[in-house]
């Protein structure tokens, strides 16, 4: 590591911003708050850029040691940073998108009471996320992991006055705990078997492990446990339930944390520990299956949702499923690639949705929108770009990454490919549905909706209703930048450029497939064509249903009946969990822990102890009679006892 890159600056800068805003923001003006937040976040971004610039001149893996942290026996975990192509990509994505969303938030949150709080939390999130990305050992990574969980909890529950927001925050936290539990056990296993959590050391040891069922079993266990953690953080089946509710948070939060960065931490983690997974085919398979199922499952739910942010949330879940599928089939670089592009266009989508909500005054129900493209053209255009990107229409970013994944999936197993294809179709369908319902047709802003799906306004009532209005420039500029990125972001993938860039990290994981590539190049082109076709057909179907014949969806819904309602209610998963886990837990803790243990055992024992003490002292009090001779008597008796004891001890001998 010849030239030091001062990586530590990158996480610390946002932390400083968070501290300043958190401690002094309450008094200072909004301008000051936003200046500070933007300055530190932007500084981090610029530093990340400079790091990226100088990175080529550095050894492929750059480690930076900051300070001792834990040194117990042979085990050691330090505050040290680890930079390679993978973390560099994450670094740029996080800081870049984060910075843009910071800018956006300035406009979006301007009227909010907890302005300084919001930015302090946001910077805090940046700090933890960057720590997570840059950590050179699992423990430090776990710190970041938990930290982003904390930040996301704080931000989901940002409007904690609202029950739904508070409970959503709690839900996210608890569900993540389940995942973190698995993650922790995985880490313990690592410590037990490798005596270290340092990436390089662990991976060296893993590669050195002798092949065989024992090694495979161990690594599979570890991998699956890590996978559980990833599922929690990246909202995969069965732990995805918190993400849709997380939409209770402000929209920039949804964009930054629950679309672009945090939820991808799981993917990053899996990719980071690819060495382990590559030696554990079982774990990989699990990852692939979970990813695939999640993608399809969430996509189907996304069809029926009418809340604009929910739709985006489910699409996020399904896109994350794509990434996991990629990792599952060993195409880590493809997964990361999609992660990057997805960060662009999904962030853009959320921001645009936020702009829409902002425009229509806090309304989130798409059925009360429509025809907005004339009111808010810029939002419409950027959102259109994003939609095309996610739908996988070339040459937009989504196309390249998704196609890459599908191609790899096909090489691994054609079932993955098929499901991925179906998911792609559904994706493009519901995305265009969203687009059409929102921007086409005519505006239903003030009419009462038929289904009575009234959703509470999100703390933006002070905007007042009336004619939808375009968002301020400070919100639009990030939209445009992201739109540009969504357009060109995928081009780095042409000719496996991105894959080669990441090659030092993932090694020759794809070499085999690269070998077979030349042979089946025509096949790849064919699949590419099919997927584009599918995406287009999805778009067309959406057009038919929601623009040309708007009465059809009702009919279909009625025709489908139970299935439709099941999908509409997200397959009753929440209710299922409530019945399976939540209710028993609540009842058990109420009856056994609260009434039983706490009341009967703890409280009673303490009260009895107190009463006993009082009674005892009531009696003992009379010993203090104030009579000199009584005291002397006690002293004499006590001294006699002491003397007897000492003699018994044998002092006399």
């Amino acid at each position, binding site marked *: 590591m010849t030239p030091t890159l001062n990586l530590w600056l990158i996480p610390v800068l946002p932390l400083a911003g968070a501290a300043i805003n958190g401690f002094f923001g309450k008094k200072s003006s909004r301008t000051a708050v936003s200046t500070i937040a933007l300055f530190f976040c932007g500084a981090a971004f610029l530093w990340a850029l400079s790091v990226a610039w100088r990175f080529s001149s550095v050894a492929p893996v750059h480690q930076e040691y900051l300070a001792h942290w834990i040194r117990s026996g042979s085990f050691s975990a330090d505050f040290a940073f680890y930079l390679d192509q993978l973390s560099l990509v994450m670094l740029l994505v996080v800081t870049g998108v984060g910075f843009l969303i910071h800018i956006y938030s300035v406009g979006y949150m301007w009227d909010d009471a907890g302005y300084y709080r919001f930015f302090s939390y946001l910077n805090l999130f940046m700090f933890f996320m960057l720590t997570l990305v840059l950590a050179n050992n699992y423990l430090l990574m776990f710190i970041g992991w938990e930290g982003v969980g904390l930040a996301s909890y704080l931000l989901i529950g940002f409007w904690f006055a609202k029950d739904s927001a508070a409970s959503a925050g709690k839900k996210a936290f608890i569900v993540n705990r389940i995942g973190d539990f698995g993650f922790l056990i995985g880490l313990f296993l690592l410590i037990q078997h490798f005596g270290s959590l340092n990436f390089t050391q662990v991976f060296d040891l893993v590669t050195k492990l002798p092949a065989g069922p024992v090694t495979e079993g161990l690594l599979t266990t570890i991998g699956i446990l890590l996978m559980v953690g990833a599922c929690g953080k990246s909202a995969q089946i069965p732990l995805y339930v918190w993400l849709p509710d997380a939409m209770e948070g402000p929209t920039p939060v949804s964009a930054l944390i629950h679309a672009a960065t945090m939820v991808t931490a799981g993917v990053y983690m899996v990719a980071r520990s690819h060495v382990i997974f590559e030696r554990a085919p079982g774990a990989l398979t699990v990852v692939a299956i979970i990813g695939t199922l999640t993608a399809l499952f969430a996509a189907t739910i996304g069809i029926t949702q009418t809340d604009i942010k929910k739709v985006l949330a489910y699409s996020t879940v399904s896109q994350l499923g794509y990434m996991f599928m990629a990792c599952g089939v060993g195409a880590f670089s493809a997964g990361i690639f999609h992660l990057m592009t997805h960060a662009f266009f999904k962030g853009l989508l959320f921001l645009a949705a936020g702009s829409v909500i902002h425009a229509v005054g806090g309304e989130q129900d798409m059925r009360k929108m429509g025809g907005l493209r004339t009111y808010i053209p810029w939002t419409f255009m950027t959102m259109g770009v994003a939609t095309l990107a996610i739908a996988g229409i070339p040459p937009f970013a989504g196309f390249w990454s998704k196609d890459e994944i599908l191609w790899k999936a096909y090489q691994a197993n054609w079932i993955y490919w098929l499901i991925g294809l179906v998911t792609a179709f559904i994706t493009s369908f519901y995305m265009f549905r969203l687009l059409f319902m929102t921007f086409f047709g005519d505006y239903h802003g003030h009419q009462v909706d038929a289904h009575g799906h009234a959703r509470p306004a999100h703390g933006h009532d002070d905007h007042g209703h009336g004619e939808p209005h375009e968002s301020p420039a400070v919100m639009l500029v990030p939209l445009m930048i992201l739109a540009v990125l969504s357009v060109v972001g995928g081009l780095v993938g042409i000719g496996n450029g991105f894959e080669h860039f990441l090659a030092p990290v993932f090694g020759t994981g794809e070499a085999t497939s690269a070998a077979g590539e030349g042979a089946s190049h025509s096949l790849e082109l064919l699949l590419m064509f099919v997927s584009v076709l599918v995406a287009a057909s999805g778009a067309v179907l959406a057009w038919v249903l929601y623009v040309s014949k708007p009465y059809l969806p009702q009919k279909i819904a009625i025709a489908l009946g139970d299935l439709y309602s099941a999908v509409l209610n997200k397959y009753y998963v929440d209710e299922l969990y409530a019945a399976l886990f939540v209710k028993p837990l609540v009842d058990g803790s109420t009856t056994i822990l609260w009434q039983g243990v706490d009341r009967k055992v703890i409280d009673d024992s303490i009260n009895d102890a107190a009463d006993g003490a009082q009674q005892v002292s009531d009696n003992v009090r009379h010993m203090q009679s104030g009579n000199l001779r009584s005291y002397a008597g006690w002293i004499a008796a006590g001294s006699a006892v002491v003397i007897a004891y000492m*003699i018994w001890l044998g002092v006399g001998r």
Partner: protein
Amino acid sequence: MSVHLVLFLAFGAVAVAGAVNLLAQTHPINSALSLIAVMAALAGEYLLLGAEFVAALQVIVYAGAVMVLFVFVIMLLNAGVEEQTTGSRVAILFGVPGAVLGSVLVAWVVLRHSGTGEVPAGALPGPPATIGPLLFHEFLLPFEITSILILIAIMGAVVLASKPPSAPVPPREEN
């Protein structure tokens, strides 16, 4: 049965008798006098042990000064026969048996080693000439500290005892 032992027993008998009499008497003045007897007997014991200086001090300081102070206070307060109040059952029920038991135990332990240490008469002649250097060199600091203690005691006595105009209690601890 050497002369030394005889004298020891004689003085010891006087001392114990005085001590018991101190407890038996109900009038403080008699108790005081019996205590003086005890002190005189102890002075005799000290002489037997060869500690002449200590014996003389015992007579001068204790018998001649401290006890005079006691008698003075008894006379001043005109203390009469003590009334037999039963203020403390504890002292009688636990204290006295405890004290007796403790002393008996100690005596038992000590007597089990009887005959180990023989103390000859005048074993350690403690003339002032030998005490002096010890007192003013080895134990100079404690000596000075006790002087300060005495000074404080004087002031304390004066402050405590001289509120209303009455017979002054002469601070009385030099010697």
